[in-house]
């Protein structure tokens, strides 16, 4: 099997903080993670978990306290590695006095492209991200969505094998997010490796081959979204309506009401007994469905557990 596109080994980052910078804060601790070639990898975690830190370490914007990483076999120390990597920073801001076309041309000059090649690529990219009509307008007049698209354009301009995106969907409206999602899927179709960080879980579920969940600076789990949360259903949910007001049935107490409809959750083994009860009450059954846990719940559990641990540590005075 080919070596992974991104290999991270024991990567750690400490920040000095506090009075006179004497205390150290660990924002990343012993991260070990691989991203396989050609996969879309989602890096999930709440704010401050270490996602951006990891990405900045990879891009050599900050330096690790310990550990190493390699992208496409080259160490992150090697600047020439950047030829094959595209990067979109978090909440990007570009030179607002330039137009989109000028910005792309500027960045393109750092890759060894001929002038003709450069022009050609800039045109193609602008078209690809839908900024062709706005290409002569200065970036200071761009909306957030447009800036994000410009950012994507500069990230993939040079045909990189690996694309790293830091919170690409943040601050976008649903239309904007859809556009970014589509671009990511297209990148995948082209065989590129994509690593992106997000805290929007539904996006991750939809796009990613694998996800890595990071909370409080450590990796808590890694795998396909489905694997992470377990396929085991947690039970069945029955949706029903009452034939006339005032009908009584024991399940009513456990049900939640939305408008005229009721939902009740029962363990799988009790499904038929519940249905019998409802049948006796002449209730109109609308649907019976399996309850699947979402990534969100898995996530929330992790975060709560982490918070509880942090509180315990605080209380014990360490």
């Amino acid at each position: 099997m080919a070596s992974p596109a991104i290999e991270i080994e024991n990567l750690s980052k400490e920040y000095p903080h506090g009075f006179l910078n004497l205390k150290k804060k660990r924002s990343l601790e012993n991260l070990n993670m691989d991203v396989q070639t050609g996969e879309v990898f989602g890096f999930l975690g709440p704010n401050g978990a270490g996602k951006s830190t990891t990405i900045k370490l990879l891009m050599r914007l900050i330096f690790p306290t310990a550990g190493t990483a390699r992208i496409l076999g080259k160490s992150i120390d090697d600047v020439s590695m950047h030829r094959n990597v595209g990067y979109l920073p978090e909440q990007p801001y570009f030179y607002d006095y330039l137009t989109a076309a000028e910005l792309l041309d500027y960045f393109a000059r750092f890759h060894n492209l001929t002038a003709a090649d450069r022009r050609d690529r800039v045109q193609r990219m602008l078209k690809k991200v839908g900024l062709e009509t706005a290409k002569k307008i200065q970036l200071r007049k761009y909306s957030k969505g447009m800036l994000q698209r410009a950012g994507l354009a500069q990230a993939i301009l040079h045909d990189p094998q690996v694309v790293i995106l830091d919170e690409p969907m943040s601050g976008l409206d649903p239309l904007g997010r859809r556009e970014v999602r589509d671009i990511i899927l297209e990148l995948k179709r082209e065989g590129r490796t994509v690593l992106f960080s997000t805290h929007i879980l539904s996006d991750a579920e939809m796009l990613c081959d694998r996800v890595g969940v990071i909370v409080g600076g450590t990796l808590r789990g890694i795998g396909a979204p489905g694997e992470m949360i377990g396929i085991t259903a947690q039970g069945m949910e029955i949706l029903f309506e009452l034939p006339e007001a005032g009908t009584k049935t024991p399940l009513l107490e456990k049900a939640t009401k939305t408008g005229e409809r009721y939902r009740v959750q029962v363990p799988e083994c009790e499904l038929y007994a519940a249905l019998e009860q409802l049948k006796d009450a002449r209730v109109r059954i609308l649907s019976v469905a399996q309850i699947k846990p979402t990534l969100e719940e898995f996530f929330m559990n992790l975060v709560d557990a982490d918070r509880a641990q942090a509180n315990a540590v605080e209380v014990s005075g360490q």
Partner: protein
Amino acid sequence: MRNIWTVATNTFREAVRDRVLYNLVFFALLMMGAAILVGQVSIGIEDSVIVSLGLTAISVIGIFIAVFIGVGLVSKEIDKRTLYALLAKPVQRWEFLLGKYGGLVLTLTVNTAAMAVGLYVALWTVKHPLERSDWYVLVAVYLILLKLALIVALAMLFSCFTTPFLAILFTAGLYVAGVFAEDLRTMQAVGLAPETMKLLRGISYLLPNFENFNVMGAVAHSRGVPASLVWQDTWYALLYASLVLATAAVVFSRRNLK
């Protein structure tokens, strides 16, 4: 090298679009005013006054640009995070730094040259035709430019490791200290121990001696400046600025961006 040039030309473009060069309008007005004032007072040294005033203005405006924009070269890119996307390209941090430096020096050169033209126009209105000795003013302008190049290097160094506000303070402070460096060497203060005098002398060599570049006195009195001085000043500026930039490059290469 190409990367440095790319960054430099973009920096120049930024300066133009940020309307930095509009200061030239102010300068032109100043020169016009001076020419008119001097024409009315008529004390027999009109050309000397125009040259002095013009060179002073070129120097002061240049210093303001060098300090404020010089500090902003790096700190603005870090604060606004425009730097992040750039450093993800195959470009070294020191190439970025040198490119920024080159761009501002280029801007200053254009700015200063334009002001020199303005000065000559004003000079011509009070005294035409111009004599050979009037061309010595160009030498003074060149030396001022060397001085500015050195200041920009210092501004960049400070902005690489402190906040913009402090960087401006330090650069301005070092400029003032540098102007008096020569005096530090020659002063005879009463009541200081010989060791202290030696220490002060040593410090005076370390400081950037900005008075090296000041030939306003000679030029305003229509005297030339020896070519060897110009050569030596050029070497001095080159050497000192290189040391400063090398330090800045090392500091910046190790800096964790926020």
